[in-house]
């Protein structure tokens, strides 16, 4: 059977009618006990399992997922990867993720279709230009790539933008990060799942956690729809449903769950070859490899677990899009959907041991979890394997809400999340 993906194996299997490919990952029956259990089979959970096995040699690991792999926010985001944040702690975190993304296709032997096409965060007013300059300075000081764009630069990268004299959103410039881009979101989940499965991790789909096993004040495993699974340590990577899991474990989190919408147009020929974000218009867009315009914006302002989204935000997003790109008025929308995101007061993630010892948190990524998947996996794996914070995850512990040492990235990330 053929396991490794390469041009040679493609040729070999092509000559053999494609019948020799191994399954990408195994679907074993749950064991009654593992060293570690990860709840949540999205990008963060699968990456955690992979790095536990790869970097820490802990292969007796199960990932339990109530639905199917990558069926939550991993499959619902708009595939943008970037590290254009303001505070040093955030840039260290997100740049770690971006650097891992840059080598991920090779590391996983799975093409995640990373396209570092660059991203422009537009400034429409002189005041926004000053903020853009401040963000660029901060990013450069923090050691990631950033460039302050003027109007001529915007014309160069966005020739189809509305530069007319009556434009509602004139482009004075913006923040450019050339290493930003997009990656195939499903491939990130599948690639981590395949690589983790190959190292011995059990991936258990359609396996819903109904409660936590608590003995002697410690988390000792999970009760699932496929039986009780004991474990030394349990990791939680369930995004918008973190509060529900926390309630089962007996504590609350500083999280409110909101719907974040996105939509795609019909596919058209290549016309937009960067990621464009306008915080002012509340819209961002990129063109997928298939040619669809992938469009998103801010949160629905009503706490929600319904994966649908409401019209007012969609109207803001799309009116912003067609104001900036009048040519897009001709596009038909094909699909619209929403994911449930875990929004924290300071718009920064929560990484660390929970109030229930033995249960570790990876949540609070809000609208920006996809770009952070490799870092979230490395850091949660480090926490669970060593019982200690990694230097990069320490500032993001839950204790910051008690000490008041928040990392408020609502401004840094452009669209509030």
């Amino acid at each position, binding site marked *: 059977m053929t396991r490794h993906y390469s041009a040679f194996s493609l040729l070999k299997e092509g000559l053999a009618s494609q019948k020799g490919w191994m399954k990408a990952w195994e679907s074993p029956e749950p064991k009654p006990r593992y060293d570690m259990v990860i709840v949540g089979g999205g990008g963060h959970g699968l990456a955690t399992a992979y790095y536990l096995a790869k970097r820490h040699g802990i292969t007796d690991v199960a990932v339990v997922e109530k639905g199917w792999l990558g069926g939550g926010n991993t499959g619902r985001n708009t595939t943008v990867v970037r590290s254009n944040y303001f505070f040093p702690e955030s840039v260290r975190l997100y740049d770690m993720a971006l650097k891992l993304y840059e080598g991920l296709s090779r590391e996983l032997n799975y093409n995640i279709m990373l396209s570092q096409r660059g991203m422009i965060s537009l400034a429409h007013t002189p005041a926004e230009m000053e903020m853009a300059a401040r963000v660029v300075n901060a990013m450069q000081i923090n050691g990631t790539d950033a460039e302050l764009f003027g109007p001529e630069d915007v014309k160069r990268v966005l020739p189809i933008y509305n530069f007319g004299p009556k434009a509602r959103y004139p482009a004075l410039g913006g923040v450019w990060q050339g290493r930003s881009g997009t990656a195939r979101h499903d491939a990130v989940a599948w690639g981590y799942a395949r690589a983790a499965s190959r190292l011995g991790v059990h991936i258990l789909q359609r396996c819903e956690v109904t409660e936590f096993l608590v003995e002697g004040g410690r988390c000792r495993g999970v009760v699932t729809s496929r039986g009780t699974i004991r474990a030394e340590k349990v990791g939680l990577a369930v995004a918008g*449903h973190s*509060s*529900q899991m926390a*309630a089962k474990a007996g504590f*609350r*989190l*500083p*999280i*409110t*769950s909101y719907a974040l919408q996105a939509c795609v147009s019909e596919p058209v020929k290549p016309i937009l070859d960067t990621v464009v974000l306008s915080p002012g218009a509340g819209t961002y867009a990129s063109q997928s490899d298939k040619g669809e315009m992938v469009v998103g914006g801010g949160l629905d*302002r*009503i*706490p*929600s*677990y*319904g994966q649908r989204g*409401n*019209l*007012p935000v969609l109207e803001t997003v799309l009116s912003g899009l067609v104001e900036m790109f009048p040519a897009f008025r001709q596009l038909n929308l094909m699909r619209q959907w929403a994911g449930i995101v875990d929004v924290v*007061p300071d718009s920064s993630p929560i990484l660390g041991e929970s109030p229930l010892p033995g249960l570790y948190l990876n949540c609070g990524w809000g609208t920006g979890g996809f770009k952070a998947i490799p870092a979230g996996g490395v850091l949660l794996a480090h926490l669970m394997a060593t019982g200690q914070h990694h230097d990069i995850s320490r500032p993001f512990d839950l204790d910051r*809400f*008690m*000490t008041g040492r928040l990392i408020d990235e609502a401004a840094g990330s452009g669209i509030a999340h």
Partner: protein
Amino acid sequence: MQIFSCPFCGPRPEPEFHFGGDLGNDRPGPDCTAEAWAEYLHFRNNPRGTAEEIWLHVPCGELFAMRRDTVTMAADPGRALGGQP
């Protein structure tokens, strides 16, 4: 477009409303612990299903209580808050 019902103005479209947090999240006294203050300031019930919440109707400026289902988005009519805020 979702319609919420303000107890003072009646049914109005959702952009007129602003979410105000959990009902019963009362401000602790000035001598409370850091943990109690953090609980009040940052920690949330965030229930899946029935939620008891505070909402603000922005045009009339009144806060009120509303029971809502966070999955189906069905919302009962808002109720005036009793007593002192």
